[in-house]
């Protein structure tokens, strides 16, 4: 079985490109048994939403000229 270091690297990669079936399977099996990697998975998705929210907050001007 792959280590948590390898699995989190794959999880991170999966946020930026489509993984192979084998890779997705490896993640799926691992996070079934490993709560910390499961947390990492959901928390990195959370961080992505936070980043979007952060940049959106940077330009909350009243006459919204540009949409995010």
């Amino acid at each position: 079985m792959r280590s948590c270091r390898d699995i989190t690297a794959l999880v991170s990669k999966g946020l930026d490109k489509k993984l192979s079936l084998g890779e997705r399977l490896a993640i799926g099996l691992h996070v079934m048994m490993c709560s910390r990697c499961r947390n990492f998975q959901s928390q990195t998705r959370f961080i992505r939403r936070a980043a979007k929210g952060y940049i959106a907050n940077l330009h909350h001007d009243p006459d919204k000229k540009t949409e995010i």
Partner: protein
Amino acid sequence: MLLSAEVNTSDQLSEALLAEHRPVLFRFALLQLRDNELADDAVQETLLAAWQSSANFAGKAGLRTWLIGILKHKIADHWRRSTRDIVTSDFDQIDSDESDADVDEFFMSNGHWNGGPTTWNDPEAAFKQQEFWAIYETCQNNLPPKMAKVFMLRELVGLEAEEVCRETGLSDANYWVTMHRARLRLRECLEIRWFNQSNIKKENRHA
């Protein structure tokens, strides 16, 4: 207004095609100029310049890269004109890279977590709190400069991974490593400074 000018655009670059890239260009400019109006002006000028010189553009594949190139000139022009000190980090000045050792802070030699992610209770609730955004910003600013740049180009500006590599000169392999580290660091920082803190507060309230 902007590009609805008199001249006939029979060329390859239509107004609509350029406008598709507007949100990404705007976020790119906003991150560096930190001002909505300035960013909007820079994007406006960029699109206008692009449209006027669309004959110089070859190949649709790199349209966004080409536009970002123009935008960077507009932003540089702004800083030259501006009497203000440059406080904002200039993306192009950043070239330092930190040591390779830092993933090992997070994992033990056998690849298992050293500490590792605890469960966060209702993370979305944080978005409604102003203090959370200050913490988020601190954590983001605490990333090493080059890592922060890569992370922001990807997650804040919204460039694709290949585009980030082109902008930063990172290899494919280095990109994945850098993003992995950035996410590990940000995650840990948010956990320590926000999620564990609010757990402590809640526990105190129950006690």
